């Protein structure tokens, strides 16, 4: 059984079919990429899976149970974490605190426990702080833990976002263009990190423009064009698919 199963999902905005009857599956432990030209519906599909939009038609199942209609925080609670195409860090908070917000689901302390600073809340806090520090270390930015997150460089902000997404110990992470704005060296680092995220047992679904990244690390690649899926296979076959070549490079005749 696939971990994530998207079947016949459609989403319309006014007259535009942003996503039209798209189906795909992500097996547990896999790195799967969604690619396609701008406006192909990749981010819309992400937003449908993570509860930011609800589909007009179709079904989304995660670990065998329906997911569509659940608001973002419930989707997160089911074990799906995400990053954003346009970095969405929390301003006015340090990198460490940003990642600690990612631990929210793993904590229990409520208003009263927080106000009274009770022992269980203190213990939880210490544990979350430690875990957040480990993740910053994993992303290679441990030294920046105390810096205000939004004042970091673009690449560092991406790293904080990824650490934050991993902080909830998710089953699956959705990465929306994680290499956007990164230089070649940073992209290569990112590829290694995504591979080691998978080694930790986290399934990865990513939307990406950077072909070298996608083809290098993905087990499967699904290609979207104008809201429809035109290919879905291993990277090598997708690269040879005539329809994909046409969409990406245009007809040779013209």
């Amino acid at each position, binding site marked *: 059984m696939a971990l994530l199963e998207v079947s016949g999902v459609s989403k319309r905005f006014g007259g535009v079919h942003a996503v039209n009857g798209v189906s795909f599956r992500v097996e547990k432990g896999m790195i799967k990429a969604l690619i396609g030209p701008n406006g192909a519906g990749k981010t819309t599909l992400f937003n449908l899976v993570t509860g930011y939009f609800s589909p007009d038609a179709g079904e989304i199942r995660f670990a065998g149970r329906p997911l569509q209609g659940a608001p973002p925080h419930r989707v997160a609670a089911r074990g799906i974490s995400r990053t954003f195409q346009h970095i*969405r860090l929390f301003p006015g908070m340090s990198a460490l605190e940003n990642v600690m*917000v990612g*631990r929210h689901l793993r904590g229990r*302390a409520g208003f009263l426990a927080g*106000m009274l600073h009770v022992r269980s809340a203190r213990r939880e806090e210490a544990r979350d702080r430690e875990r957040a520090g480990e993740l910053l270390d994993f992303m290679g930015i441990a030294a920046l833990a105390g810096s205000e997150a939004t004042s970091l460089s673009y690449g560092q902000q991406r790293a904080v976002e990824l650490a934050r997404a991993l902080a909830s110990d998710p089953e699956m992470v959705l990465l929306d263009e994680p290499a956007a704005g990164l230089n070649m060296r940073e992209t290569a680092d990112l590829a290694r990190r995504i591979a080691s995220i998978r080694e930790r047992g986290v399934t990865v679904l990513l939307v990406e423009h950077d072909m070298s990244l996608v083809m290098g690390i993905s087990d499967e690649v699904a290609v979207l064009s104008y809201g429809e899926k035109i290919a879905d296979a291993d990277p090598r076959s997708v690269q040879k698919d005539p329809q994909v070549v046409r969409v990406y490079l245009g007809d040779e005749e013209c």
Partner: protein
Amino acid sequence: MRLARYRPVALFLAAAVALELLAVHGGKGFLLTQLTMSAYYTLVVLGLSLLMGYAGQISLGHAAFFAIGGYASAALTTWDLSAWGGTGLVKALVAAGALAARRDAYGGPVLAFHPWLACACAVALALLVAWLVGIPVLKLTGHYLAMATLGVGTIILSVAVGTEALGAADGISGVPPFPLLFGAAVGGSAAERVVNYYVAFGLLALGLLLLSNLVDSRVGRALRAIHGAEDAAGAMGVDTGRLKLRTFVLSAGMAAVAGVFLTHFNGGIGPSEASIMKSVKYVSIVAVGGMGSLWGTLATSLVLNFLSLRGYFGSFDDAVFGGILILIMLFSPDGVLSPRLWRAARAAVLRPRPAEAPAAGDAPAAGDAPEDVR
């Protein structure tokens, strides 16, 4: 490490003691009255600061929650139930110790709810109203939320003015002192001025301690996350709607507690406490103190409320707070204590004005270039 956390609150209490000694030994003991009142208003403002600065929600109706607390406690402690003394319900209440017999200002016997019970009911009522109002209203954002909370404030004000049992335009007077431990009471007698000052500042310090703990906790981080990037907070599993509602209820509860205490301190409450201008005043103080800065809000609130209560702004009191709000929004939306404003002010003072800057011809040699060129 653990103690360092409580240092700011301890310093605040020490400052409060110093202020009291200064006022009493300087022969200005009467100032304690306005300082006490200003501490209670600051409690309202702190709660609002949590809501506005941390959860990112505005409320233009917070005076309503203060008034609900004050009015409910005033009504329950002044409605005389002696006429129903024979009924089973009143007898049961007396037996349960819920009612207290006393004499009013003219020596007549009064049988009314005990202030402790009245206080509990008043705060519970405010929490309930905030919760009921908050469920639909907090689905709104930005100026829609401001409008809706303004509407809530208007309703509570007109209920206060229009209800005979609540004294209509006159409000409720003759509210008894609120007995605390060791014979002390929250009330207006000059003999208890110092005690009341410490009760108010102690309550304020407690509020400050609880809120500063909260801000630095799991919930506090989630609130700041909502304020900073609500959609991303949702993706982290933060139930944004629920946290906003709880924060709203908490801040309404703080306003209600302040309302109860100040009403017993003053011996009464009038509809002006529920007025829209009061709500605007609270909002403008939070704005001056800086959104998301409990300490900044504390300082500005104590000062501004004290000046206002001492009548320094005369008949232009509302105008002063309206003006402050405009100036803050125009020039320093982060408040007067924001680092950005201070940096800008320092730069304006330290940097020579363009007119005084050296002309291009006599620019310094490359060797002694000014710092900011390098």
